[in-house]
């Protein structure tokens, strides 16, 4: 089969590419905001919306179905917010509950619909695991318009979304409307999820949000390259998965895309320079033991502990020398500590730690205890 001349394949590939780009780019911010579960809840919660729209209109036209799915997803996020605010249920549990309740309700509706002797319902179950081959030209047009709109808005609100993800409290202190921006971001995420429902399916759509971001984060330390890379990974796995599943009979698209994605993620987790497991393993092999605490400062601190009432009680160099290993250059060490502002002379050959020096010593002890525990 010739890919570029096959009309259906091109439609399928374009649709999957658009959704991969939108989900990958927006998913990067969701990932950085530790909201990966939100994508999962949103997509599962969309199912009853899809079923209800079909029950009401009897049609599977893309726009009404997507609006229904988006509304259901939005209701789910509002419900989660209400539960978190009004009760002691933590955020992730509330998300999990919303996911289960909405998805369960959607499955019940879907089973009821399928019992009807009505030919129009055929294919509705493809919303569960996705069937890219069933994409029509009008589906892809709607997906492309919405996906492009998402990406343009993301570009326009780039610095606001960066603030929202890195330090939204600081954004608030600058007078930027962070709550409204949070709402806009959630809306864009809903749209990105909804445009993928027919292709990837509600069950696995969250992988399109999370996985490209996770892989891209491994490969770069900067935001713009991460978002572009995540979008590219989304496009690649979306197109590959959709085309594969269209060519092999009865191969659902969602699981195929997820398999491609998982391969990329696993490879990046292992081989990514700097952050990858392999890299860390090599680095760990070379790792030196933690730098020794400055022994003279620690001795002086220990001595100062004997005189808690007199922070400036001086201690003799001779005492420090007996506490140090034979041959250690205690004078040189004191000189260095003096230059760093950690000790001060309080008389002839008498030394005491400064407040900063005391704290430095306390911190070193804390760090030591943490490491050994």
């Amino acid at each position, binding site marked *: 089969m010739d890919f570029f001349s096959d009309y259906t394949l091109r439609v399928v590939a374009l649709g999957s590419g658009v959704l991969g780009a939108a989900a990958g780019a927006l998913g990067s911010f969701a990932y950085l905001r530790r909201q990966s579960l939100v994508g999962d809840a949103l997509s599962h919660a969309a199912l009853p919306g899809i079923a209800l729209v079909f029950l009401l209109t009897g049609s599977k036209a893309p726009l009404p179905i997507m609006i229904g799915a988006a509304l259901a997803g939005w209701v789910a996020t509002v419900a989660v917010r209400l539960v978190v605010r009004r009760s002691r249920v933590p955020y992730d549990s509330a998300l999990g509950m919303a996911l289960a309740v909405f998805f369960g309700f959607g499955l019940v509706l879907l089973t009821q619909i399928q019992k009807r002797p009505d030919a129009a319902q055929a294919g509705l179950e493809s919303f569960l695991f996705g069937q890219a081959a069933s994409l029509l030209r009008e589906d892809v047009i709607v997906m492309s318009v919405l996906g492009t709109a998402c990406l343009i808005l993301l570009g326009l609100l780039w610095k*606001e979304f960066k603030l929202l993800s890195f330090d939204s409290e600081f954004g608030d202190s600058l007078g930027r409307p962070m709550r409204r921006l949070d709402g806009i971001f959630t809306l864009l995420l809903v749209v990105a999820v909804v445009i993928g429902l027919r292709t990837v399916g509600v069950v696995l759509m969250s992988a399109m949000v999370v996985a490209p971001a996770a892989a891209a984060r491994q490969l770069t330390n900067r935001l713009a390259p991460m978002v572009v890379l995540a979008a590219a990974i989304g496009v690649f796995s979306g197109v590959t998965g959709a085309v594969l599943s269209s060519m092999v009979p009865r191969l659902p698209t969602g699981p195929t895309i997820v398999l491609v994605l998982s391969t990329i993620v696993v490879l990046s987790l292992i081989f990514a320079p700097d952050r990858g497991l392999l890299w860390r393993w090599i680095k760990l092999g070379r790792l030196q033991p933690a730098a020794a605490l400055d022994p003279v400062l620690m001795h002086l601190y220990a001595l100062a502990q004997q005189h808690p009432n007199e922070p400036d009680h001086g201690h003799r160099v001779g005492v420090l020398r007996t506490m140090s290993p034979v041959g250690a250059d205690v004078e040189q060490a004191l000189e260095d500590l003096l230059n760093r502002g950690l000790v001060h002379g309080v008389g002839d050959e008498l030394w005491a730690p400064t407040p*900063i020096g005391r704290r430095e010593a306390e911190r070193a002890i804390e760090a030591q205890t943490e490491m050994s525990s």
Partner: protein
Amino acid sequence: MVANDTPAMEVEDLTVAYSDQPVLWDIDLTVPAGDKMAIVGPNGAGKSTLIKAAMGLVPSVAGEVRVFGRSFAKGNGEIAYVPQRSSLEWDFPTDVLDVVTMGTYGSLGWFRRPGNAERDRARAALEEVTMGAFERRPIAQLSGGQQQRVLLARALVQEAPILMLDEPFQGVDAPTERAIVAVLDRLSDEGKTVIVVHHDLQTVPEYFDSVLLLNVRAIESGPVAEVFTEDNLRLTFGGRVGVLAQLAATVNEG
């Protein structure tokens, strides 16, 4: 400073509650312009909450905040905020210069991207905290002290007349502590007002002009020499009197 100068900040009857539990109770506070003030109190006293509530970052049940005599509104560039370092996610994919440039976002407005002018301001601020050589360093690779200096630089970029810092000396190394103190001194010399949530009682007399002793209520506030007394510390911190008595004694001697 002229005696009848308008105070930089006046807080009146500020009360904050989390789910009906008062966290701050009826706080009155006046911070003179050009003052370096420490906010001191035990854990859970509401120190961070106070500066956040004063800036409108957490909702308050009651109270009024005036800045230079006018009712305070977020986003007019009068207060620059340095949050607690540990409250941030430092594994975020960005570099030092980009974080400091965020200080210019308030004046940029919608849809405008930071350009060379903004980045130059950010570079100048980085030089002030001796982090000029680190502008391209990913923030995930910074030490605690370097992170703190980056956050201070981000606030300096805002060129606000008032700076509020939440525990800037928490877990930083000695050179960073000295660098921060030097910057705060310079700001104060330029007539800017600096308000710092501070946890180290020993350095209060050395670093600050005035102090607010806080434990849900404002116990006392004013110049360090007048307010930082054994009695007030006991009222603020309760039980651990022994240590505090010594501390107040050494302060009063010095």
